[in-house]
């Protein structure tokens, strides 16, 4: 007789649910500055420990410490902080617009501003970004006009994508920001293809892409990692682990069994695990990966360890599945507060300057929004001509679309 016991199915559960006291005591956070910075030429085999630690630069007192400190000029830090503030204020304003019925949908990036802004700072302006829906900071850091973002969110007559896309699905070739897809993860292997093309042409531009922790479970993640590794594509593959995929904690994507960064090991790629709320750490890791890609050493996967401080979208209510005050308990703090603390600590910023910068961001957003609302908000009818609905399906309109357009009388 075989000794057989009944099998049992395990379904992972987060530690805390609504009503529980947030508890992050199990998180092992290495000291800021404690992780060495390898050469960009290091083979992935020499980097096997990086997926299991956490690259941090800013310590609890706001000091920049250790070998990953990118030693940015104070002026760069101030600009970065202002950009993060601008994203936060913009998000708040657009969220409110949705609640006011001026658009159908919105997604904030609150708590994750450093992920996009610091990456944009570390990349070149002509590097190609294949973002997910929560990297609006890339556009803002590259100076894309707020008014155009708002026109997109309002799907009005000046919407750069002509009212065709859900709000926040921006697109800008000029700003090297690929059209966002609502199908999660598809952009990850596309970015690899773009990077392969850049390498094929002997170009010097690299690609970067972002997905969330939940999306690592899609086949596209595996395709991207495989092709990036096989063809040594100059690409940075970012996994933004914000702990939550709508209502599912990161354990449902396998994050409790192994870190997301450690998935890189099996592909022979470096996997860096980075404090995503630490502007300097995100900048430094992106800079390392970009330099590595540019030197033809290939792709890097970066897990940006952060926390989605607010709802997934305007259609979501996180108080139904996680403790309402969990964001406040996040042990890695808030990216805006931490960079502010650092700038104050080094004597390059003050509370007064911060309030003035906040007021400036608010005024900038208020003015742009006034202008965008004057153009039109969703539901008011000030949309592009209906005949444009039939355009850009193909380069040239085929007969059947022309006939359908004629049937609608436009």
């Amino acid at each position, binding site marked *: 007789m075989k000794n057989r016991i009944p099998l049992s199915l395990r379904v992972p559960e987060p530690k805390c649910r609504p009503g529980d006291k947030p508890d992050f005591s199990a998180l092992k956070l290495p000291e800021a500055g404690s992780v060495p910075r390898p050469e960009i030429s290091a083979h992935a085999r020499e980097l096997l420990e990086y997926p299991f630690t956490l690259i941090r630069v800013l310590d609890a007192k706001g000091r920049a410490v250790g070998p990953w400190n990118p030693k940015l000029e104070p002026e760069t830090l101030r600009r970065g902080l202002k950009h993060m503030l601008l994203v936060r204020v913009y998000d708040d304003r657009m969220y409110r617009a949705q609640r006011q019925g001026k658009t159908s949908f919105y997604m904030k990036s609150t708590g994750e501003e450093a992920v996009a802004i610091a990456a944009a700072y570390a990349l070149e302006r002509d590097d*190609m970004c*294949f973002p997910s829906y929560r990297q609006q900071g890339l556009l803002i850091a590259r100076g894309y006009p707020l008014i155009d973002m708002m026109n997109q969110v309002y799907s009005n007559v000046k919407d*750069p*994508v*002509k009212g*065709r*896309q859900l709000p926040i*699905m921006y*697109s*800008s*070739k000029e700003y090297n920001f*690929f*059209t966002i*897809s609502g*199908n999660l993860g*598809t952009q*990850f*292997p*596309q*970015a*690899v*293809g*773009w*990077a*392969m*093309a*850049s390498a*094929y*042409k002997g170009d010097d531009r690299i*690609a970067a892409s972002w997905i969330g922790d939940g999306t690592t479970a899609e*086949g*596209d993640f*595996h*395709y*991207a990692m*495989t*092709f990036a590794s*096989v063809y040594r594509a100059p690409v940075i593959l970012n996994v933004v682990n914000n702990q939550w995929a709508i209502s599912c904690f990161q354990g449902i994507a396998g994050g409790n069994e192994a870190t997301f960064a450690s998935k890189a090991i099996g592909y022979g790629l470096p996997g860096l695990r980075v404090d995503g709320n630490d502007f300097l750490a995100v900048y430094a890791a992106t800079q390392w990966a970009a330099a590595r890609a540019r030197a033809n050493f290939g792709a890097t996967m970066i897990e940006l360890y952060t926390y989605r401080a607010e709802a997934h979208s305007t259609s979501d209510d996180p108080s139904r599945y996680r403790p309402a005050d969990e964001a406040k308990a996040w042990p890695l703090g808030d990216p805006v507060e931490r960079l502010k603390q650092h700038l104050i600590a080094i004597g390059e910023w003050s509370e007064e300057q911060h309030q003035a910068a906040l007021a400036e961001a608010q005024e900038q957003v208020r003015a742009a929004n006034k202008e965008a609302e004057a153009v039109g908000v969703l539901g008011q009818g000030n949309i592009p001509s209906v005949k444009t609905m039939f*355009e*850009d*399906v*193909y*380069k040239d309109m*085929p*007969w*059947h679309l022309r006939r359908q357009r004629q049937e609608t009388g436009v």
Partner: protein
Amino acid sequence: MPAMNMIQALNSALDVMMAKDPNVLAYGEDAGYFGGVFRVTDGLQKKYGLTRAFDSPISEGGIIATAIGMGVYGLRPVVEVQFADYIYPGYDQIVSEASKIRYRSAGEFFVPITIRTPYGGGIFGGQTHSQSPESLFTHIAGIKTVIPSNPYDAKGLLISAIEDDDPVVFFEPKRIYNGPFSGHHDQPVLPWAKHPASDVPEGHYTVPLGKAAVVRPGNDLTVLAYGTMVHVSLAAAAESGIDAEVIDLRTLVPVDIDTIVESVKKTGRCVIVHEAPRTSGYGAELCALVQENCFWHLEAPIARVTGFDTPYPHAFEWHYFPGPKRVGEAMKRTMETR
């Protein structure tokens, strides 16, 4: 002009385009060093180098996704999906991405890629090497679907597909790679060399997308077919004595409505033939188009001869395959209606 079979003609199209345009490259499973399981990319790696014709991982999703990224960059990749039956892992990238990127970016980004894939039955390939999934693509706005039926068209259409700025799914009827197949599986197949369409120029030429060909003029009825079924329909016409006008659609989307309408208005009768299962097959669309455009000229119900609504069966290959007997019977029934 040299006589080429369809494989040689497709290979020649790739050769011509890779010589002409450094942005054209070819890859897929076994498509590099080995030259593809059907040899369509044979010799390209040797001639153009490792980075222009190469092997890919077994990853249709990755193949198509990376091609999209390359297309967005400005290249014109031609990727091979080894069998159409394997295309489904890449389907999301075609349906959600390649087809919609131009639209959703208001024309800023576009995807000039060609996805080549052998399709169709008649080779005892069973259910995973015989499928005809064209209607899963013709339903998708933003992609073009092309199916050649002979070497000359195969080369000219493939060049057009590569030069086209929209994504093209290019189905290759693998049963007729080496010779036109009448559907009489018990008879020897003639090589392409005996067929006039094997006269294929060595250089660059195009067969335009969206244009059908009347491959057999006739007055009794119109047959709409593509791929292998063009040759089956021609055999059925010859054997039944019915003066059928056989139209080879060549491009399914955008379809050449003018040629279809002109013919059906002349004959008043229409038989639609495809290998794919009947329900929601491309024949349903053709049937609707003929009805919408030619209703007052029709003298008989439109007939469909198709594969059955079953998975493609192995041992029942010739029961499933719509051969000249079934096509001929449908033609006779259509003629009998007064």
